[in-house]
């Protein structure tokens, strides 16, 4: 079948899709709109509430737009010093932790991508075992304790940051993006493996490095478990721990709610509820600001990962 006839057939079909195709497109559009709304509406509602007065929330007058617009709750939230220190801590943990984890990945992945390295199989098994077996929560805790990094920021930067799954992705990227010819040429010109790694391999792997940086950053930024296990000093808490302590306790820190007085209609509990919306928005803001930029790298990263399989 030539392309010309194919095109003509397509053209003939395109203007008047058959009945079932039309029904498909209608159902599909409805479904997509529904999916979009169901994801978007709860978030919009929370944003609207965060800008509304406590009374408006209690009386259920907020739908998707702020009612009796106020910035009171934001003022209260941003005045709370732990939110700011939590944000800065998270920034530190996410950037330093990512830097460390990505260096580890690259150092591991490059040699593993070289078929001429003796013992490659052995090292691969050595790394792969970690995908299946782990010590578990308590042996990990004991290790952090024994290393003397318990209750220090190091425990949130360097502990348990190796991911074999990511290493395999980077490794296969190296294998496919660095043709053997370049390496041979470099060797002939007297470039050793170390120099080749820093001057050729790393620059060529920039796309996959970007993806790994984002994977790690988002992962560290959003997690609270390690901080809960390994730190007990609120001054070291990352943002997620601070948010957790505000969102999941009956009593909010008095430092935060002091500026808002319970009125005739709104009790202290109502004010907490109102504040929590602002806390949610403030907490989500950094990620949502980064989202448009992060999104396409994530999608790319997942493609690289799935191509490997």
């Amino acid at each position, binding site marked *: 079948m030539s392309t010309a006839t194919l095109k003509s057939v*397509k053209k003939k079909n395109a203007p008047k899709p058959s009945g079932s195709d039309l029904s498909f497109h209608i159902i599909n559009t409805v479904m997509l709109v529904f999916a979009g709304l169901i994801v978007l509406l709860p978030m919009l509602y929370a944003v609207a509430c965060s800008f509304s007065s406590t009374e408006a929330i209690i009386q259920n007058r907020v739908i998707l737009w702020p009612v009796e617009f106020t910035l009171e709750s934001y003022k209260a939230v941003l005045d709370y010093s732990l939110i700011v220190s939590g944000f800065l801590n998270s920034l530190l943990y996410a950037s330093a932790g990512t830097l460390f984890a990505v260096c580890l990945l690259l150092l591991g992945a490059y040699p593993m991508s070289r078929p001429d390295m003796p013992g490659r199989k052995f090292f691969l098994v050595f790394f792969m075992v970690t995908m299946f077996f782990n*010590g578990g929560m308590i042996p990990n805790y004991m290790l952090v304790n024994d290393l003397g990094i318990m209750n220090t920021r190091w425990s949130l930067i360097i502990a348990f940051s190796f991911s074999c799954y990511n290493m395999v992705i980077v490794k296969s990227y190296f294998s496919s993006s660095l043709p053997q010819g370049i390496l041979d040429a470099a060797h002939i010109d007297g470039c050793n493996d170390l120099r080749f790694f820093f001057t050729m391999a790393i620059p060529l792997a920039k796309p996959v490095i970007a993806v790994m940086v984002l994977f790690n950053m988002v992962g560290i930024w959003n997690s609270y478990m390690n901080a809960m296990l390994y730190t007990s000093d609120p001054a070291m808490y990352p943002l997620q721990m601070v948010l957790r302590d505000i969102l999941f306790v009956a009593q909010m820190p008095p430092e935060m709610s002091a500026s808002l007085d319970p009125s005739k209609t709104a009790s202290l509990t109502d004010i907490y509820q109102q504040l929590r919306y602002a806390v949610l928005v403030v907490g989500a803001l950094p990620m949502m600001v980064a989202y448009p930029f992060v999104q396409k790298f994530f999608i790319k990263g*997942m493609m690289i990962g799935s191509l490997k399989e």
Partner: protein
Amino acid sequence: MAAISQSLSKRKARRAPQKPSKLQPSSSLWVRVKKAKYLYLLLLIPVVYVFIFNYVPMYGVIMAFKRFTPSLGIMGSEWIGLYNFQRFFSSPQCLNILWNTIRISLYSMIASFPFPIILALGINYCRWSPLKRSVQSITFMPYFLSAVLLVGLMSQLLSVRNGVVNHFLSAIGVTPIDFMGNPRAFDHIYVWSGIWQGTGYSAIIYISALAGIDPTYHEAAMIDGASIWQRIWRIDLVLIRPTIVLLLILGVGSILNIGFEKIYLMQNSLNMSTSSVISTYVYSVSLKASRPDYSFGTAIGLFQNLVGVTLTLLINGISNKISGEGLF
């Protein structure tokens, strides 16, 4: 100077083809190892790191067979064999916790399985690109919310007092329900919030799998008059089957490894009967307890790990046998 180095490299280049290739067995192991010395140097840091942070805790698992006393250390503590395991399996909570873990995982796996595929197909066939792009961006967004924010948002919206859902229920004459404190609602809230958060993310893998399908299949089917429904059923779903199988294998292997973060946040004293799972139980008997029982927690963790590995290997073997589509 430049000329010298040029001629040198030329001479080397001329000689290169005669040199035995690195992969040929004729060069001795020692020579090859020496040649790769810098590669080992690079590998040194990750190997040491993985040894410390992944292998040392595996050694710590020995604690599961001991009555661990911090002052005596792992080696010095008294060996008690399988006592901790016996204690777990005969404890009254054991069945409840295992059942919670398996029930929530299976429910989550089965309920969340079709949605990403449906969404991916929908986005794939959508012709109006603004809708297509915005739906993809919007549905992917909640993936970036942390567990704290997700559960925080849920508890706000579902709260008995002033939650929008209960506002709505009372408007239609239903008495407000304490969703977060209701043991029977726990599974549904956990699973459906997971679907809300993860569908857009999981759909991406399927979208890329659908994009990888050779368009000639679809062209041929269209010429033969196949409708979109038929094409989805006979072409798309058949060709993305390896992806589906792969994701299922990964899911089954982690049946006992329910993520700790979200479930721990959703727990409260009212819903413990359905919300207590292995990982949170380990935490509550060991690190969180006033008299921490490290050995007991380690034993349960080890059990969870071994079941996970067994399930992964089992499912992989079955899937290899049936369809030839395994992970390894």
